Structures are given as C-alpha cells and as structure tokens.
C-alpha cells in the first residue's frame, strides 16, 4: 500500500515537473524573441498607438460597465483574467484581444 502511495506521489510530481519544464523552456523562447526585437518604424508606432486607443476604448466600454477600472497586472495574469471575463461577461473575441493588448502594454 505504501509503495502504491509513493508511486502515485511520484506520478503527480512528474506531471507537475513536466509542466514546469515546458513552462521554463517557453519562457526562454520568449526571452529570445524579445532580444531579437528591432526598432519600430513611424508607421508601425502610429499603428500601435491606434491599437492602444482602440484597446482603451473597448476596455472602458466593456469592463467599466460593471466595475471600477483595475490597475494593469503582469501579462501572464492578465491573460487569465481576460479569459475569465470573456466567459463571464460574454466579451467578444475581438474585444478580448484588444483589451489584452491594451492591458499588457
């Protein structure tokens, strides 16, 4: 019985460590992506500004309808919050993407 318990604990631990390893490798890929970023052109920055304004507008009209505007949280937390709110408040996929972008800038 003890052996079975140890086996089960080992399996749970392996599953969790697999997840952690996948997570860590994903993080290093992100870091590599960040370091290879090039300076943005004027056109691109204007486009980014438009996206930001659109994101802010959609954030205010969707989120501000029910509650006070929250501060910006770290991106990975924001991704979870926006997914939760997409389901709870039936926010459209398009609005969700704009809001996530705005809230993670």
């Amino acid at each position, binding site marked *: 019985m003890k052996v079975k318990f140890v086996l089960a604990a080992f399996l749970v631990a392996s599953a969790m460590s697999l*997840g952690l390893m996948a997570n860590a490798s*994903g993080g290093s890929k992100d870091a590599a992506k960040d370091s290879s970023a090039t300076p943005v052109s004027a056109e691109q920055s204007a486009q980014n500004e438009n996206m930001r304004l659109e994101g802010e507008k959609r954030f205010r009209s969707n989120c501000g*309808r029910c509650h006070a505007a929250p501060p910006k949280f770290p991106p990975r937390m924001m991704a979870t919050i926006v*997914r939760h709110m997409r389901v709870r408040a039936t926010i459209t*996929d398009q609005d969700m993407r704009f809001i996530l972008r705005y809230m993670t800038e």
Partner: protein
Amino acid sequence: MMCSFIRLRKVAKAGLLGLGFLFSLALQAQDDGFKAVPILTGSTAYFTRVTAGQYQDAPTVSPLLLLPFGDKWLVEAKGSYSDTFSKNAQGDYNGTISYGMAYAQIDYIANRYMTFVAGRFTTPFNIYGERLAPNWIRALQTGPLTSPVTSGSGLGGMMRGGFPGTESLNVTYALYFSSNNTHHLLATDRSTGGRLGFFLPRQGLEVGASFQQVLQADRPHSSGVFLEWQPNRAPLTVRSEFVRSSGTKGSAYWIESVYRLSQIPSLRRLELVGRGEQFFAASNLSAATVKKLGALGKDTNEGDFGMNYYLRSDIRASASYGRQFVLGRNANLWTVGMTYRFLMPMLPQGGAR
C-alpha cells in the same frame, strides 16, 4: 466494506493524478503570446448591517480559483464563507457560519463565437447574478428584490458567446440546461433557459432579454428584460432589470443609477448610488402559501441610497441607507463596511512575461 474503501482510495489517487496533470497543463496555457497562469482572486468584506433595528456583523471571504490550461480551457471555482454575528434577545452576539459553492465550472472556448461550459454555474438570467453580484462589484450591498424570483444556479451544460453583429453592435447569447440536485449546499432545479443581449459600444448601451423554464414541480417559467447604459459625456451608469415569474414567485423590477464624482478633484474617488425597486407578489396566493413564501408572499417597495469611496481600485468603503415598505411592516436598512478584492498568481513566475 473493504472493497469500497479500496475503490475510494483508487478514485482519490486518480483524482490527485488528474489534478496534477491539469495543473501541469495549466502552466502551458497561452493567450496571444502570453502564457496564462493559474491565479487566486476573489474578495473579502466586512459589513455591519442594521435591518429593522437588528444588528448584524458579517465578515465574508469569497475566493475564486482560475486555472487555465491549453489555449482554450479554463477551470473556474468560486466558494464563499461567512460568519454572521447577530444580537439575540439577551443582547449577546451569536455567530452563524455559512458557506457554499457559487460555481465550479470548466470552460472550453470552441471558437471565436462559442464557449461551452460544464459543471455548476450561475444561471445566465439578466445581468445581476452573473456580473454584479460579487460584493466588490455591486454598487449597493443589499441585493435587489428580483434575485429570489429565478433559479440562481444550474448544474449541467451551457453554451455562450458573443460576436460583432455590425461595426457598432455586439450580440451576446447564453443557453443552458440544468439538472435537478437536492444536495443542501449545491441545490439546483431541473431547468433550461437563456439570455440574448445587444451591446452598442458607441452609445454605451446594452439591452437584452432572458427566459427560464423550470422542468420540475409546478413547472413555472420566468422571463426578464435588462438595460445598462453609460452615456459618453457623464460618469454615470444606469442599470435596470425586470423579471416576471408565472408561478408563485411574483414579479419585480429595479432601477439603479451610479454617479462617480470624477469631475471634482477632491471627490473623484467617490460614487453616489440610488436604487428604486418594487416587488409584486403573485395574485391569488392562499394564506398557507404566503406564509411559506415569506418575503416573496407580500408586495414590497424599496428605495436605497448609498456611497462608495475607492481608497484604491481594489479597496472600497461603502455605506447605504434603505427604506423598505412591506404591508404592515416597514423597515430601515443600514449598511456600512469595506470590501477588498485580492488577486495573486499561484506560482512565483506568474507575474513574469
């Protein structure tokens, strides 16, 4: 006996293993380049209420666990725990503990327009139950008179989503089916229903309608409409709901306005709230039914006025006064207290990019 004990242990181990696997998948969830992390959020509150001269102190905590996994899945579980202290005839305070599971659901985002939900969920009827009920969100701490008219929770499946109808119109929908559950903490009715909403972002206006059909006992149905409006030129929110039940639970409506004093620099953190509501008991109720229904057996009018002061976006002090007019027994409703909305990642690297 021994056999069932062994089976129970196997189920427990399988459950533990499944949870571990789910957690490991959760670490890999990704949204637009950001890996979503499991988070623990929710709210705590402490409120003192004086209802018709009866004092009550109620600390509460409502934790919400969000566990994303993959790009399309999310497990959400929200519980609540409160200890209500009230004065008895001798002037001593007695505490009553209550706890429950608001929802425990698994969401699958099938595509851009549709999400499937399974488990225990809040029924999608109008807007209060799903969106405005958490105590850090609601503008007034006293719940509206429409709440008891419909079945608030379901156990089964739901399909919901939203899509842009035109450039200036979003359409949202939710359809559900719930089975009957008689567990004292997780009771639900066998019922079906849905909600359809239209949101005009330019005008800041949302209108919609809901329907619910109970499929047990005397099979009553409820229908409702709702409205939420935020004009672009003023920091004002107007909300309203109407609900009507074909059974013994009557009909009710409420209209609420919230004005944030953001134009006055020294008072920009303050918002003023007013709400008026009426409940109409079903006609032709027998004396025995009226007694059984309690508050739902009598016509009620209520007016509330309140203030919320945001110390920070997540900490709010609130106070309100309401006057309830019930046949033969009017009452003053005072509420004062604070709410705190907490949010934390479940892992140390949760905050990193």
